[in-house]
């Protein structure tokens, strides 16, 4: 039996233990009294708040129960917000408005909103970043890269013209990286930068670190705060951006995580992602099961590498999709619980490493071209579900998602959707737990949990995650689910408004498209060629040193920070591929 089956068992044992406790406190008057006292204390600790209409409400809603068994069940199954097993939330007050009495007015510490952006060249994206953060108190940048960058290539590689700067920003060198975040103080307490990149993540983060050093001096490294996605397992399963074999890819990731854990205490070196799995067409349960199991594999690998789970555990974070299926009511809630129990009981992790910290993005795939303005409504519903799951941060998609990198009009609407839900509506700002514990929520939680554990056992039976990957298990499952989804759409059993129901006969929409002009693409190519010429002498030597580190088993990430001063992304990818071999896709 592998650790996934152990984790499934640990969760069931935990549930069983809760039921035992319920019986115990009911049967034992002394224990009953103790738990009642604890409960009263917890309730008394809840502060109240006043809504704009003058209504008084508790800041944390708790069930109105006074029977010891019920109390034990509530505390065991859900836990208070911010307490084990974290079903309700990872932290106690999440997006609540600051308490007025604390004197901070209506301000929140930090917006959970993060808008993913990237287009054209570094300068263009920089401009978009400045536009997006115009009204934000904190600088929270989330970077999308273009196809060539995601595949570790250079803009001047053969056959790429047309792709440069499309769907994200083109980054080839450390100089591009400097241009990208120009004008932002990325060392400030309130700044955080996230980068959606995986296969080439170590090289890109190395460029980020090197660029920061150029701008703020060597001492700035520990201050850098942000997240890099870097989750190679879901690349193999769903997003298809793995550059090297699975083993060397995991090694490079491990090197980076080790470095970041030691030297960049404010940085999250991996974002374990289900978003791409779900968008590739999986069911919500598959999304959670594969993502959690990938996460546990990383933990196992890094423990075996000799790293301390309480050091790197708190540096892990997660990324989920939020779609329109009912499972999304509770998917993240249940995942938080499974992660916490697995980390505590199977990996001996302390409280900080038990926390499942989550970024959510609304579903892009649910947004369609027909009658595309309906996408605003879809995104709003998905945002509601994300916040009901107490996500720590969130991206909302723009209504023009099916067509193009979003234009400013729709980006603004997408951002405002979040503002409306969190700031204008009263649902999330006064009180934690608005719908937690409702019979429907609990029914979904139970069903989803059981289905995730069943998936764990199936993967375990196949020899664990890596062995299942080799047998194409996750990919085959996702592809079948995707095929079923599309079949349901086109046979009408899955209603899609404006497509298979209430469709109008309006022609296709005329959209403003964000595309990167050929001139611009050529400019990047020219700029890169000049850069390569300037660094030509040292590049070869640096690459040889890099090969040496790979061959000798040293920390590749530390070496990359040095290499990027003279080597482009494509040169580094090319060299690493020669040394460790290219990725061999299993489709």
């Amino acid at each position, binding site marked *: 039996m592998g650790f996934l089956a152990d984790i499934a068992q640990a969760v069931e044992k935990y549930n069983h233990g809760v039921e035992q406790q319920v019986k115990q406190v009911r049967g034992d008057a002394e224990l009953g009294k103790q738990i009642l006292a604890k409960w009263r204390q917890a309730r008394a600790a809840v502060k109240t708040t006043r809504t704009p209409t003058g209504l008084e409400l508790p800041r944390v809603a708790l069930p109105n129960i006074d029977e010891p068994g019920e109390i034990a069940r509530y505390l065991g199954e859900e836990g208070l917000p911010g307490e084990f097993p974290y079903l309700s939330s990872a932290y106690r007050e999440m997006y609540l408005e600051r308490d007025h009495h604390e004197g901070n007015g209506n301000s929140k510490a930090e917006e959970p909103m993060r808008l993913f952006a990237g287009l054209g060249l570094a300068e263009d994206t920089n401009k978009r970043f400045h536009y997006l953060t115009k009204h934000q108190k904190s600088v929270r940048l989330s970077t999308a890269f273009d196809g060539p960058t995601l595949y570790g290539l250079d803009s001047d590689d053969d056959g790429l013209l047309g*792709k440069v700067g499309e769907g994200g920003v083109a980054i080839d060198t450390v100089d591009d990286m400097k241009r990208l975040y120009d004008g932002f103080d990325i060392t400030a307490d309130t700044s955080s930068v996230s980068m959606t990149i995986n296969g080439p993540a170590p090289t890109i983060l190395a460029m980020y670190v090197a660029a920061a050093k150029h701008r703020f001096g060597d001492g700035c490294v520990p201050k850098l705060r942000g997240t890099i996605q870097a989750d190679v397992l879901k690349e193999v399963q769903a997003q298809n951006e793995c550059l090297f074999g699975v083993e060397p890819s995991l090694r490079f990731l491990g090197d980076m995580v080790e470095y970041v854990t030691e030297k960049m205490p404010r940085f999250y070196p991996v974002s374990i992602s289900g978003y791409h799995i779900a968008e590739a067409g999986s069911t919500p349960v598959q999304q959670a099961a594969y993502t959690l199991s990938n996460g546990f594999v990383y933990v196992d690998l890094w423990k075996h590498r000799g790293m301390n789970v309480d050091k790197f555990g708190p540096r892990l974070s997660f990324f989920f999709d939020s779609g329109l299926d009912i499972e999304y009511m509770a998917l993240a809630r249940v995942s938080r619980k499974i992660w916490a129990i697995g980390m505590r009981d199977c990996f001996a992790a302390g409280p900080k490493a038990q926390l499942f910290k989550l970024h959510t993005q609304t579903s892009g795939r649910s947004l369609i071209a*027909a009658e595309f303005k309906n996408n605003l409504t879809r995104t709003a519903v998905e945002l509601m579900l994300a916040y009901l799951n107490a996500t720590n941060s969130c991206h909302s998609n723009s209504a023009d998602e099916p067509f193009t990198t979003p234009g400013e009009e729709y980006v603004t609407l997408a951002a405002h959707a979040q503002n409306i839900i969190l700031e204008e509506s009263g649902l999330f700002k006064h009180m934690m737990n608005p719908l937690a514990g409702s019979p429907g929520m609990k029914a979904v939680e139970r069903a989803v949990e059981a289905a995730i554990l069943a998936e764990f056992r199936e993967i375990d039976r196949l020899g664990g995650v890596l062995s299942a990957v080799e047998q194409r298990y996750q990919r085959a499952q996702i592809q079948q689910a995707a095929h079923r989804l599309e079949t349901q759409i086109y046979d009408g059993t899955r209603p899609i408004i404006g497509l298979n129901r209430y469709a109008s006969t309006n022609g296709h929409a005329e959209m403003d498209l964000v595309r990167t002009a050929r001139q611009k693409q050529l400019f990047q190519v020219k700029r890169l060629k000049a850069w390569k010429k300037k660094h030509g002498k040292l590049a070869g030597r640096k690459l040889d040193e890099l090969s040496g580190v790979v061959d000798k088993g040293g920390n590749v990430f530390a070496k990359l920070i040095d290499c990027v001063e003279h080597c482009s992304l494509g040169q580094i990818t090319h060299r690493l591929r020669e040394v460790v071999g290219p990725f061999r896709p299993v489709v």
Partner: protein
Amino acid sequence: MPKDESILRVLTAVPICDGHDSAINTINLEFIRNGIEVIYLGYHRSVRDIVRAAVQEDVRAVGISSYNGGHNEFFSQVARELHKEVGGEITVFGGGGGTITHDDERIMRRAGVDKIFFAGTPLEAIVRYVKQLRAPARGSRKRTAADSRGGKRSDRALSMALRNAKSVKVATRASAPTIGITGPGGAGKTTLIDELVLRFLQRHPTSRIAILSHDPSIASHGALLGDRATMIHSQDDRVFMRSLATRGRAGGLSPQTEPMLAAMKQMGFDLIILETVGTGQEAMPFAGGLVDTSLFVMSPEYGSKLQLQKIAMLDIADLVVVNKGDLAGAPRAAAEVTERLTMNHKNQKVYTTQAKQHRNVGVDRLYDTVLGSIRQGEPPRLQVTRKTRTSAK
């Protein structure tokens, strides 16, 4: 089974720097359920890879699914390059959800793209479109400029010759050396072949190699032929690859195998490698001198020693490879297999490899045994064949 002639073969792929494969995976599944054979090249593929594969596989059409932008350039280039090679015989079509606009379609059509399917198209409409493309008429063809390149016959000319290979003809010139590779499903045959091809290309800078690869047809007669996606090193101008579906034939090969292989042997390749479908214990696909060297690839996970007794190929294979040498059971498996072969008294050899590892020494050793450590420039020769093995005995 429908007549061979009426089975449609289509190539599908996702462009370079693009990993959006969900739509094409669904469409592939839909195609094969409707009796179409799909050669799937995978995601992140270049124009050249797509065009080469389309010509070599003699497909009726190429379907491209593009999401990461640059589709006007990419589709147009594929259409233009294909036109140069086959003069419009291969239809180009595709989609990319809402990222491709009606204006884009007009641009692409001007470059020779036949049809774009926009977001919201029912899968059924896509299948209907492909089904109305009839398979090309046999024998009939137009000549194109690309027919012969530098004296060597072009991929297009070879494809045409294969199209007309209906029965096994008497050999007119020396046959190309041929290796047949078989073994249970998932043992690593495809991966191993690609690694052998990589070594071959490196050591013989001008030689040409042919691969005849087999995958199963499903009950409703379509087939997903996906080996090209995995065989990254074999997507090369010096490699001619043809993927065949079993089309109802049992035992690991296709009804077309013999005539195609016979024709291939006469085409001047320096080496031919044939891969069967994953086979059962009793299969012996290389009867009748089909290949010169037979290689049986297995993984250490065959179960008990008793199971080994039942594997027919272990009696006759020239070489046996225990792949997945990284698995815990590999040393034991190699020992058990060696023991099993010793009882045959046939001078068969056993190799342990780890095909999925880059520059694996086990694969190097296997390569040297099969293809010799010949000096560069010399024509490759098979070192171990049915003949050499039996005469050494």
